């Protein structure tokens, strides 16, 4: 059976035909041979009987007349007929009167057969060696009188030979039929296999992606040409690749409202169908073509959908990857199905590696356990998670806003979880700063109010102490005590003035002023004192002498504050202070830098140096208001002040100014606008903003 199934269709067909023919031939030849042999023998028996009886009738006269010549002629003329072996005539006493044998008579024959008086003929099969002979004995009678017997011998061997001839002829005919049917079968099978091969080739081509094959024959005359309908809106109109009965929604009046499935039966009566439809193979090929066309259409639709999907995915991926939030999706088994770049970067993996991983593959055990439990809760409850999470990463505190929502399938089941971790550390910082700023604002207002109220009594104390000094003798104990009271009252007044300045409750007197002069005035005031502390002041002023709009006294106070601050940073070891000014005409800004070779400020404290009452100096050395007041004055001038520590190399600290014991140093930068138009007089003294409070 396996062998049969591997055979080619043509071979199978031929084999089948040959088998049928051979079996038919064997059966028919056997049966027909047998039947015809029997029939032929019967026929020959009848013929022999008729011959014997005829001879018996004809022998009457010659026997009566004792005419042996006529008898001899009569028997001899029978032997001339092919299968008659012998004829002889006996008289009523058994004597042979005439016979056809040459040279004597075989006496065996006389008694080999006989016929009773009442019978017309008796047939006996004789065997002469291999030869078989039918012996017919017929009585020669006149009325009831028996004159003798006629004996005729017909060769059965020759009958058999004619049967064989007949069988040979039939076998020849069968062989011819076999040959013809094999040729016909081959031709037929070739036609079928050729068409099947075309179908197979096209199927292979389809597998290779070529859907433009045509298996069916050319359509020939199209339906719209045959019907002359002119219905250009009909879907079949102009379709040269499909038969109209494969197209739905044709508008031909003969088509009716039938669907494609019913079309085959309803189209049987259509003229177009009757003239164009082919056999089953053609139907198959045409259906194949229609399938290829629909497949092509579907594939194109699929490709288009796929393209659109890919575009959407790319867009989605871009959006997801653009966000700094960490977005991830896990399925119900807690395995990651997708994430964005931010998430992948946070766990130190490629996006492609993430799929299928669990929290335990990505995070350390405690974190993973936490995430896992949270996810399991949401999967079970279906409630969304919305919380803020504090995480310490490498000893740095970070805050995250975590949103985790269940993702529902079409059937309402939870199919996974979408988790978003948004970094809100900065936001948290701002929040903290805002609270501090509000606190500082309240404190400033309180301090301002208190200073304003204390200022008048202090003035009275100072005035009276001075008046009293005039009343007492100079150098006396009372005069010295009053001098101490006056001095301390002046210190208090200075503190109050600073507080008022910080809260900007003092009036400002702004005018056009030379920026360099203001700086040089301040430097000349302190240069001598600083020298005593071994502090050298180096000035590198812009020689273009920029002019700004400002309050010269207050700005001078700022410069002196900065210089004092720098001197205090030297911790009495001595060093150098560099003051540099530079005009940036295009930006409309004039900048001042004050750099020192002091101890510098630690990074974590840089952000707080402009806060009021913040001081690193010992108690009694500073009020903690110097830089705060400076900040307030600069802000009042529409500028900004920043501190950097240590001094960056880009500052190009002049070598001549460097002392032996040089520290990291601090650099203050003050930027003031040349234009005074936007310097609001009403600007309040606020807590410094993030952008102006130094560097990180």
């Amino acid at each position, binding site marked *: 059976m396996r062998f049969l199934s591997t055979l080619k269709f043509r071979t199978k067909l031929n084999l089948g035909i040959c088998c049928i023919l051979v079996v038919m031939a064997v059966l028919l030849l056997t049966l027909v041979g047998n039947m015809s042999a029997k029939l032929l023998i019967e026929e020959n028996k009848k013929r022999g009987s008729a011959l014997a009886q005829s001879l018996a009738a004809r022998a009457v006269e010659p026997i009566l007349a004792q005419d042996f010549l006529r008898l001899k002629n009569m028997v001899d003329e029978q032997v001339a007929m092919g299968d008659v072996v012998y004829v002889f005539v006996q008289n009523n006493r058994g004597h*042979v009167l005439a016979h056809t044998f040459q040279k004597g008579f*075989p006496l065996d024959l006389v008694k080999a057969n006989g016929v009773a008086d009442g019978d017309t003929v008796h047939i006996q099969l004789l*065997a*002469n060696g291999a030869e078989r002979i039918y012996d017919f004995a017929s009585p020669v009678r006149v*009325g009831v009188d028996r004159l003798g017997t006629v004996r005729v011998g017909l060769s059965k061997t020759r009958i058999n030979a004619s049967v064989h001839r007949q069988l040979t002829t039939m076998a020849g005919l069968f062989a011819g039929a076999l040959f013809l049917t094999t040729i016909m079968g081959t031709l037929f099978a070739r036609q079928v296999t050729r068409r099947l091969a075309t179908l197979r080739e096209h199927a292979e081509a389809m597998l290779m992606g070529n859907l433009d094959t045509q298996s069916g024959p050319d359509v020939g005359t199209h339906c719209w040409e045959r019907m002359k309908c002119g219905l250009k809106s009909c879907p079949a109109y102009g379709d040269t690749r499909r038969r109209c009965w494969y197209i739905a929604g044709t508008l031909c009046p003969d088509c009716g409202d039938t669907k494609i499935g019913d079309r085959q039966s309803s189209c049987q009566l259509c003229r177009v169908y009757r003239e164009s439809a082919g056999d089953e193979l053609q139907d198959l090929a045409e259906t194949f073509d229609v399938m290829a066309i629909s497949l092509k259409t579907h594939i194109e639709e699929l490709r288009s959908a796929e393209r659109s999907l890919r575009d959407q995915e790319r867009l989605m991926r871009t959006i997801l990857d653009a966000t700094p939030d960490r977005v991830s999706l896990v399925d119900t088994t807690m395995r990651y199905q997708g994430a964005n770049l931010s998430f992948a970067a946070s766990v130190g993996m490629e996006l492609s590696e993430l799929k299928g991983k669990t929290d335990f593959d990505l995070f350390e055990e405690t974190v993973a356990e936490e995430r896992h439990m949270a996810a399991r809760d949401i999967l079970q409850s279906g409630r969304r998670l919305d919380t803020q999470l504090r995480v310490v990463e490498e000893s740095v505190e970070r805050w995250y806003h975590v949103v985790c929502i269940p993702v529902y399938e079409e059937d309402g089941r939870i199919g996974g979880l979408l988790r978003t971790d948004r970094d809100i550390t900065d936001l948290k910082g701002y929040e903290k700063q805002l609270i501090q700023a509000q606190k500082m604002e309240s404190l400033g207002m309180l301090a301002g109010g208190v200073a304003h109220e204390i200022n008048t009594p202090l003035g009275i104390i100072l005035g009276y102490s001075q008046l009293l000094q005039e009343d007492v003798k100079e150098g006396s104990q009372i005069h010295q005590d009053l001098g101490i009271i006056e001095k301390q009252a002046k210190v208090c007044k200075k503190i109050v003035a600073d507080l008022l300045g910080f809260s900007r409750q003092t009036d400002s007197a702004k005018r056009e002023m030379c920026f360099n002069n203001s700086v040089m005035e301040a430097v000349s005031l302190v240069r001598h004192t600083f020298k005593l502390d071994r502090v050298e002041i180096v000035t590198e002023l812009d020689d273009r002498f920029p002019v700004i709009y400002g309050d010269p006294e207050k700005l001078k106070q700022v410069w002196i504050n900065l210089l004092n601050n720098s001197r205090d940073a030297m911790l009495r070891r001595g060093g150098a202070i560099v003051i540099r000014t530079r005009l940036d005409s295009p930006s409309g800004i004039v900048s001042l830098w004050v750099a020192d070779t002091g101890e510098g400020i630690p990074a974590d404290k840089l952000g707080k140096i402009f806060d009021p009452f913040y001081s690193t100096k010992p108690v009694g050395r500073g009020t903690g208001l110097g830089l705060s007041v400076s900040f307030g004055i600069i802000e009042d001038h529409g500028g900004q002040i920043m501190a950097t520590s240590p001094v960056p190399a880009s500052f190009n600290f002049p070598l001549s100014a460097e002392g032996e014991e040089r520290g990291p140093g601090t650099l203050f930068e003050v930027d003031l606008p040349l234009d005074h138009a936007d310097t609001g007089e009403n600007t309040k003294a606020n807590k410094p903003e993030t952008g102006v409070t130094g560097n990180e």
Partner: protein
Amino acid sequence: MVAATGKVGNGWMGRIARWAGMVLLLAAALSCAGCGDDEPVVKVDLNKRERLMAPKPLEAITYAYLPQYSHTISFQRHRALLKYLRTATGLPLRQIFPDTFDEHIKMVQRGEIDISYSNPFVYLQLAKVGATAFARSVEPSGKPDFRGQVICRSDNPTIKSIADCKGKRWIAVDPGSAGGYLFPLGLFYDHGIHLHDFAEVDFAPGPGGKQEKVVLAVHAGAYDIGTIRKGTLDVVAQKIHRDDIRILAETRPYPGWVYSARQGLDPEVIRAVASAMFALDPDNPDQAAILGAAGMRRIIPARDEDYEPVRELVEKLGIQ
């Protein structure tokens, strides 16, 4: 069939069973091819041949009937009579069958026929070679004489009478026939018609059955007229329709057929045979059947003188 009766569990077994069935069927068909050769056979050897010994001829008194009919009819007519004669006389009588009238005459002359039963015309010739008449038959009509007949086709419009026979084609039985030639020739002669007046005169081809052949020749239209012995039409009644043939004329009666003995036959034999013949009684049903088969009513004694009218006719016509 195995497939039909056996409960075959699966397809594999079913296929085996089907194939087996087909093979069995084929085998049965093939075995039928061997049938039919079961007839009993007698073994002979056709090569073992011997020269045939001639049968020893039996001594017998030969009896011959002038072959006016076929040998078969001659045999059938006289078979019973001969059997009776053999029984009645105790003599070994045997019928022999000469083919022609001439042969009959010559056999009598040669002594091969001992007792001859012939027509009066042939008898005249036998008498010339020494034969002697001793008995004669009485016709079924009851008369000891018989006639000849002239016949034609019933639908022949040209022949109405004897005179119309002139110029016609005539078939007669035999130049030696009495009723079939001689008597009608006398009739034509009496009507002034001679042999040369006919367009054609032919005789029926021999041997034997000549009377019937004349009737059949006329019936077939090969000849216009034919002449036969009266009574022949009854003989051929099985072969043709009686109405197809018209009897145009009959001759005068002449003495009937005659038994004659050859010259030199033992008179005792003649006497014994004659007396046995005469003893046949038409009233005896058995003997009447014997006579009837031979076409006679009875057999009566005869003498040579009884045939003078025939002799005269022969002389008148100038025939030898």
